């Protein structure tokens, strides 16, 4: 007993995120129940599933914006609550008003101390150092002083990552951060998130429609469909058998040139992209 087993330290560490017997329901509609998930520090979890399966709601629970109907949710050992400084949040890209008087660096700066009262005028020097540092980390110096409304989707999302990282989070919650980005920017943004988790042991919960851009980074997958779910490595979960069971229809997972192509789910998660989705949709119903 005096000599702990070699892998004991990783077991004794507090999980970054822990859900126990979690149930979430709106009225009498249960999104999911009996969800047990323990995310280790530095672990990268992809949260997949069709629209309406409760992926974003799961993030809202962890952000403290939505109470669980049953069970517990903890972040780094304390119950999930709003304004937890251990949590960083990366939203999906959205169009920002062209005339909005806000620069890229202001967006990042709001991540530093935007939640504090007062004008923040006296702490502007220390904020500037932190912001400059974060901007360099995501390679955003060239457009950091441009109005946010003029930024491309990829530029905006790189600043979003910087904005989430300046709070020095232990957990990064990402809600479709790659949506509507081109392939190069998808890789760039997911790489930035991955660098952070490798360098700082930050846990990542990554809600996405499309697993392929992050497939090499993912430790485990949480796949939610209509209240059913499966947790495991990508190799365990992303199989025809498992997905057919989740979707309760014939689903096929194909490996095409290092990519996973899911056929037959009848929704946009079919990884052929939006152009292919329609054709598949028909197939699924024929």
């Amino acid at each position, binding site marked *: 007993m005096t000599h702990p087993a070699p892998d004991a330290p990783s077991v004794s560490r507090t999980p970054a995120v822990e859900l126990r017997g979690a149930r979430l329901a709106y009225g009498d509609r249960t999104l999911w129940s009996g969800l047990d998930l323990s995310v280790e520090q530095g672990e990268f979890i992809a949260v997949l599933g069709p629209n309406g399966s409760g992926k974003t709601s799961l993030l809202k629970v962890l952000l403290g914006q939505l109470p669980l109907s049953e069970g517990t949710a903890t972040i780094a050992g304390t119950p999930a609550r709003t304004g937890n400084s251990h949590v960083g949040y990366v939203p999906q890209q959205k169009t920002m008003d062209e005339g909005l*008087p806000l620069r890229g660096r202001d967006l990042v700066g709001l991540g530093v101390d935007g939640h504090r009262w007062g004008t923040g005028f006296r702490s502007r020097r220390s904020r500037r150092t932190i912001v400059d540092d974060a901007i360099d980390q995501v390679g955003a110096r060239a457009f950091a002083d441009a109005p946010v409304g003029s930024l491309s989707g990829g530029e905006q999302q790189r600043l979003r990552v910087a904005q989430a990282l300046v709070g020095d989070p232990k957990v990064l919650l990402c809600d479709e951060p790659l949506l509507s980005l081109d392939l190069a920017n998808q890789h760039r943004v997911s790489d930035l998130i991955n660098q952070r988790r490798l360098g700082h042991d930050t846990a990542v919960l990554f809600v996405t429609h499309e697993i392929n851009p992050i497939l090499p980074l993912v430790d485990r997958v949480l796949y939610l469909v209509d209240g059913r779910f499966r947790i495991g490595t990508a190799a365990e979960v992303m199989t025809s058998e498992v997905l057919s069971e989740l979707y309760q229809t014939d689903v096929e997972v194909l490996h095409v040139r290092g990519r996973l192509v899911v056929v037959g789910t009848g929704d946009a998660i079919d990884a052929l992209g939006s152009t292919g989705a329609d054709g598949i949709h028909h197939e699924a119903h024929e």
Partner: protein
Amino acid sequence: MNEKLADTFSKMFDWQATIDLLQYDFVQQALLAAAILGLLAGAIGPLIISRQMSFAVHGTSELSLTGASAALLAGISVGLGAIVGSVFAAVLFALLGSKVRERDSVIGVVLSFGLGLSVLFMWLYPGRTGTSFSLLVGQIVGVGNSGLQLLLVCAVLVLAVLVVVYRPLLFASTDPDVARARGVPVRALSIVFAVLVGVAAALGVQIVGALLVLSLLITPAAAAARITSSPLRTTLFSILFAEIAAVGGILLSLAPGVPVSSFVTTISFVIYLACRAIGSRRGSTGRVAVPA
């Protein structure tokens, strides 16, 4: 050319008459009131722009007219009536309007009803029609000592609250989703801001009138946002432009005796046009060539 207009132009640059008029207490009070309002409107304006609330501010000022005319009829303080009316309207809009699309039509509906009510109140008012007309187009020269006191107290209160809530309010106004995720009370702040806007709009009604409040609350901030996108610099420019429009408008209107509001609106509009021209010449700002 219209005789009245020709007369206006000749008198506008009659500096001697202006200087003579500046000796009067009521003129000095008016200038002070304009300066206070300029500071207030200039400071709040950029946040209104960020929240895309121009139409809500318009509706708010129309309802402050309803409040003011009701107060006039009831024989109580018009300034107080204006504040009650516009704060009520602003909070109502803030409570209703989480969705921009819905908010837009609700404001239109409430605004027209409020205007209808105020026409009724003005018609019922037995006193001089000029008094009620001044609520529409503003009558700063009649601000008086008690009006100045109310203005000063309100301005100090509004600015003090603004200083306390500024950072989270900016966060909530420009980036509500992430602000909410970071624990900023976005909804509560939108109500607080509605009250601030309501008070500012009600004070503006006394100077430029209900119909033209936008020229102090919106135009200077919109102009500033054209030439810079730093929130701090936008606010400073916005205050500067609002001061030039409010104080400059009064100074120019003194000698010819033209309603103050026509000068205030013209000055702020000209500043806006100039800033648009500068902004479009600068093109896409803030990008530097750094090898990626």
